[in-house]
């Protein structure tokens, strides 16, 4: 893709009428069902686990939104999905329980699974009865996903034995299943070769989940240990040895969503409310910069959404929006922290201060999940023909 092509791919697009109309439905639902939470809890959004809320959303038909109706899915198009996600994230809804299943695991099973797997898992996902997590990262691997050491070996009487461990798994302690990328033949030196994906039942014997407490005192991440875990043949998802290609497709789903611009939005809105209550106009320039950045990002995000809706696979464009989007999300955090430090003598309400502190402490993760800054810039550079 030449440079000119990449920039020209960001064509301005508008949300179609049905998606605009859908927004009112989502808002009506949230007005009724969204639990009353202080901003410092809503700021957890992505990481906020509330199985009950996820079940209510499922009952409304909005979990498994990309999946066909025959499996209980909503078959929403990309534009309506954009609206749903935008509203959930702007509200700070606790979506973590079903989030991965909805966005990654469900589509993956639908795309690469066999009919039995689809029939079993997809309806459960759409009812919020099956929560999923992702097993990609391993200790000491960082961004180098291909250096997988967790290993599935064929059992003598069929099935597989799984040994190893995965880390940075979101809320594994609350999930029913993990889709794990593991080595089914060869050694870590074989890199992308010989990898496969398995659906692991986290209640199986030999699985141990160790929640990892983070610097904000939460335990949203975890480490998962596999000690000779027995997997049926049916646990293999897709082709044996095709794990790398499948994961690449999965990450492309992951990187293209609008949530890559809204992670700090609860903090920003909470701060705006405070400024208005104080009648404080001194920060108008910063407010305007953040709103302006958001406007451009939202335009880019809808443009990527239009490509998805057209059946394309805008991997480079999505990486660009995510890189810019996480920069924006982190800019919100650090800029509002600075703004709150303008008046050491001001009495600022605790909810705003705690929200600001939380977002500032957790926001380094925004540029980790779904690919670090270095990885994404590498994707963009490749898209520009530089590597």
């Amino acid at each position, binding site marked *: 893709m030449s440079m000119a092509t990449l*920039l020209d791919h960001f064509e301005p697009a508008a949300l179609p009428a049905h998606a605009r109309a859908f927004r009112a439905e989502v808002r009506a639902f949230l007005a009724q069902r969204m639990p009353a939470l202080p901003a410092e809890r809503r700021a957890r959004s992505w990481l906020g686990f509330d199985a009950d809320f996820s079940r209510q959303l499922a009952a409304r038909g909005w979990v498994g939104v990309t999946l066909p109706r025959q499996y209980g899915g909503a078959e929403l198009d990309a534009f309506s999905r954009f609206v749903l996600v935008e509203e959930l994230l702007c509200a700070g809804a606790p979506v973590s329980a079903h989030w991965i299943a909805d966005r990654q695991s469900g589509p993956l099973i639908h795309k690469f699974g066999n009919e039995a797997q689809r029939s079993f898992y997809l309806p459960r996902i759409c009812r919020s009865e099956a929560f999923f997590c992702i097993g990609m990262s391993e200790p000491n691997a960082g961004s180098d996903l291909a250096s997988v050491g967790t290993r599935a070996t064929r059992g003598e009487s069929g099935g597989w034995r799984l040994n190893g461990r995965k880390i940075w798994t979101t809320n594994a302690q609350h999930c029913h299943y993990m889709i794990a990328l593991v080595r089914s033949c060869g050694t870590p030196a074989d890199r992308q070769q010989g990898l496969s994906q398995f659906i692991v039942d986290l209640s199986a014997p030999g699985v141990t989940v160790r929640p990892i407490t983070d610097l904000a005192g939460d335990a949203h991440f975890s480490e998962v240990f596999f000690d000779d875990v027995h997997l049926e043949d049916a646990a293999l998802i897709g082709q044996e040895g095709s794990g790398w290609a499948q994961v690449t497709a999965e990450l492309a789903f992951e990187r293209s969503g609008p949530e890559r611009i809204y992670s700090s*939005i609860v903090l920003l*809105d909470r701060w705006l409310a405070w*400024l208005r209550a104080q009648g404080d106009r001194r920060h*108008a320039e910063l407010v305007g910069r953040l709103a302006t*950045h958001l*406007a451009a990002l939202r*335009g880019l995000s809808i443009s990527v959404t239009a490509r998805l809706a057209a059946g394309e696979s805008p991997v480079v464009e999505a990486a660009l929006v995510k890189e*810019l989007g996480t920069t924006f999300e982190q800019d919100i955090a650090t800029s509002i922290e600075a703004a709150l430090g303008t008046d050491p003598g001001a009495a600022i309400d605790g909810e705003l201060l705690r929200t600001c502190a939380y977002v500032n402490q957790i926001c380094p993760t925004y540029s980790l999940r779904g690919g670090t800054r270095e990885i994404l810039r590498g994707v963009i550079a490749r898209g520009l*023909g530089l590597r």
Partner: protein
Amino acid sequence: MFTDAFETFLRGHCTPADVRAIEAGASHQPLWEALSGSGFLELMAAEEAGGAWLDLAGVLPMLSALGYHSVPLPAGQAIALRSLLPSEWEVPDGLPTFAPAALVQTDGSLLAPRVPFGLLAEQVLAQWDGVLWLLDAQAAQRRSCGIAHDASADLQWDAAHLPRHARRVADCCGASTLVAWGAALHAALLAGALTRSFELTLQYGNERSQFGRSIGKFQAIQHQLAVMAEHVAAARMAVACAFPAHQRVPALLPAAMAKARCSEAAGLVASIAHAVHGAIGITEEYDLQLSTRRLHAWRLAHGAETHWHGVVGAALLEQADTTVADFVRELQEA
């Protein structure tokens, strides 16, 4: 269709050599006459006046092309002028420009500070006291306020002569129409210059070797080009949002956002472009300077991001109970 034809026109009539010649003092008349004769300046005029009644979305590619090709004349102002003059007016001859502001001084004179193309312009569209005026620039004192080929100038009209040289255009247009057009136009020009700066830099990164490999293979250069691409993409998107279909005059807040986003990108993109190019980039003979000089000049023209962010922020703070996402969405879905 107009876009491709206009591109072809500019590639023929406004090459980098042409730009340099005019900047160095050669007559701009041949280029201006070619532009006038081409009909492109009339695109926003009514069909009965020989125009195409283009809307903002239709005219945006032409305005950005002016920035991309570093056109050293106020063709953008001429195009936009057609959307501002009453349809019964005959468009005046000569180079027009827009005054970012017009201040009545204590001695009754009128000062228009830092007018783009102020040294060349023959007509100046300016707004004060809620009225849009067309002023004869040739009756003004002009004081250059740029360096090295920048034609911007402070213009001042004596109190005594002002009435003879100012023609009342309209009360009808909104209080911020000219202000919004000035911002939107320069955002569109910036989008073109940003794109050109990025293209030159990417090409240089791919072609230039150092330490035995193309510099584009170095991670630090790749990262700079990736960041540049991000900011150019964001700036272009902000501009597109200020030039919607079915409208012929930009709205203030989208124009404010466009100018702010492009002005912010201008500083960053100019800086990365020169850092990647090294010394060659700052020479007169290499084309990058044609674009990056304009990035700096246009960042300032009609207000930098410091100004426009404040306008946007004040508007958002005024709207009680509006979330930032709703504020942005309502502008984009307006």
